């Protein structure tokens, strides 16, 4: 059981990495500041480094969303297992649809679903859910959007047109910072899950930090995921929301970096994915002549709203099946593997990779034509 949870946790780490490549690297790829392969390689390396830099593991898996500990629920490996299945499924579905969505919200959602089935509704801390997840989800894109809007205005007011290609060099640095920050935050989550599972299984002393091998494999999993690159999400963020010029890319990345660093160090946690998406939209509004595809933005927003319920539903289902004991757990694992394989096979039908990550410029002007030509390169609205 413990081995199964660790394998799933690593796979979640992998999907987390490839889901979030877009946050840092979508805009430099879109503006041509970095070639796609180079961009994901830099992001992967920085995620790897970042994972080793900070190994302070969270005290609770769910960040207080579930009443854990002595007076609350004991989170069992089976619950973590079901929660991880929910989170992985949702990450893969959003990747297939090309939607940037928060991996941590998916993990919380899956765990919530599993906890409701395993321990009832009373195990969920609703006020923490509101103040830590729901309100920040509204505020993050707004904040980043306003910051990116102002930054774009400043950049375009100061520079003349022919000087703006220089922003490409700046983009490399700002997007690298986002990657590094991501590595220090997100690899931690999986290390926490694995360590708490080992503790719950009695393989490790209570209150001890992650073992070295846990740190190494978590770092490798997230770096590998990042290098594999969620090209569908990169395409949505880089070219699907708005047209991005180097000046806008630099402004958006600066806004993302500043907002994430400020939020982690001044005690108001915001989701990286939501900040990055907000920045891209803000910079689209900020440049004269650029337009934002609000339909795509709306789809992303809907994705954010249903992330937690959807992951919770899958987590709850997996948890309910696992109540049947060992056969249930085997059935869960088999079903999860089947769905994962199916999603990968299905995604092959219209492959999006480093070579076709850019939408043709004409497609931006006439989105209808593009939808016909690539059939389902973009999801039907």
């Amino acid at each position, binding site marked *: 059981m413990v081995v199964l949870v660790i394998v799933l946790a690593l796979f979640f780490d992998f999907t987390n990495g490839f889901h979030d490549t877009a946050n840092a690297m979508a805009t430099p790829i879109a503006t041509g500041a970095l070639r796609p392969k180079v961009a994901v390689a830099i992001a992967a390396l920085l995620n790897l480094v970042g994972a080793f830099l900070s190994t302070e593991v969270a005290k609770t898996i769910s960040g207080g969303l579930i009443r854990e500990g002595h007076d609350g629920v004991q989170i069992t490996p089976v619950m973590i297992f079901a929660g991880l299945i929910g989170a992985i499924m949702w990450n893969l579905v959003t990747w297939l649809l090309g939607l940037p969505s928060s991996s941590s919200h998916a993990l919380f959602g899956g765990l919530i679903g599993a906890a409701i089935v395993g321990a009832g509704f009373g195990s969920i801390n609703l006020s923490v859910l509101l*103040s830590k997840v729901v309100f920040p989800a509204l505020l993050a894109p707004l*904040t980043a959007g*306003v910051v990116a809007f*102002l930054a774009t205005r400043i950049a375009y007011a100061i520079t003349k047109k022919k000087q703006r290609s*220089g922003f490409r060099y700046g983009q490399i640095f700002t997007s690298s910072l986002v990657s590094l920050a991501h590595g220090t935050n997100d690899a931690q989550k999986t290390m926490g899950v694995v360590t708490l599972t080992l503790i719950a299984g009695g393989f490790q002393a209570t209150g001890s930090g992650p073992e070295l091998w846990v740190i190494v494999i978590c770092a490798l999993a997230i770096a590998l995921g990042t290098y594999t690159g969620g090209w569908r999400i990169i395409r949505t963020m880089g070219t699907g929301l708005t047209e991005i010029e180097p000046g806008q890319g630099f*402004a958006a990345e600066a806004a993302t*970096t500043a907002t994430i660093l400020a939020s982690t160090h*001044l005690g108001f946690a915001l989701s990286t994915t939501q900040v990055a998406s907000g920045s891209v939209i803000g910079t689209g509004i900020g440049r004269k002549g650029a337009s934002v595809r609000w339909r795509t933005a709306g789809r992303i927003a809907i994705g954010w709203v249903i992330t937690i319920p959807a992951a919770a539903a899958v987590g709850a289902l997996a948890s309910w099946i696992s109540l049947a004991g060992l056969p249930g757990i085997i059935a869960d694992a088999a079903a999860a593997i089947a769905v994962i394989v199916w999603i990968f096979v299905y995604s092959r039908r219209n492959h999006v990779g480093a070579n076709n990550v850019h939408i043709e410029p004409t497609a931006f002007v006439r989105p209808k034509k593009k939808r016909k030509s690539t059939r389902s390169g973009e999801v039907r609205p």
Partner: protein
Amino acid sequence: MIDWFSFFVVFAVSIVAACGVVFLFSLGLRLASVRTGWRRPAGIGCFVLCGLLILYGVYLIIPSLH
């Protein structure tokens, strides 16, 4: 329930930091593109300041430096 004060601090700091970096980098691009007189060194000075801000960001990210 929701900590509005820390939210506004985050909001303000984000605006100042992001706009500051973008302002410096843009000014650097504008000044450094002219090759004559004081402008080019001034532009490079802007880039250096920008680099320092980015290094400060790296410092913030790496916990063992605190």
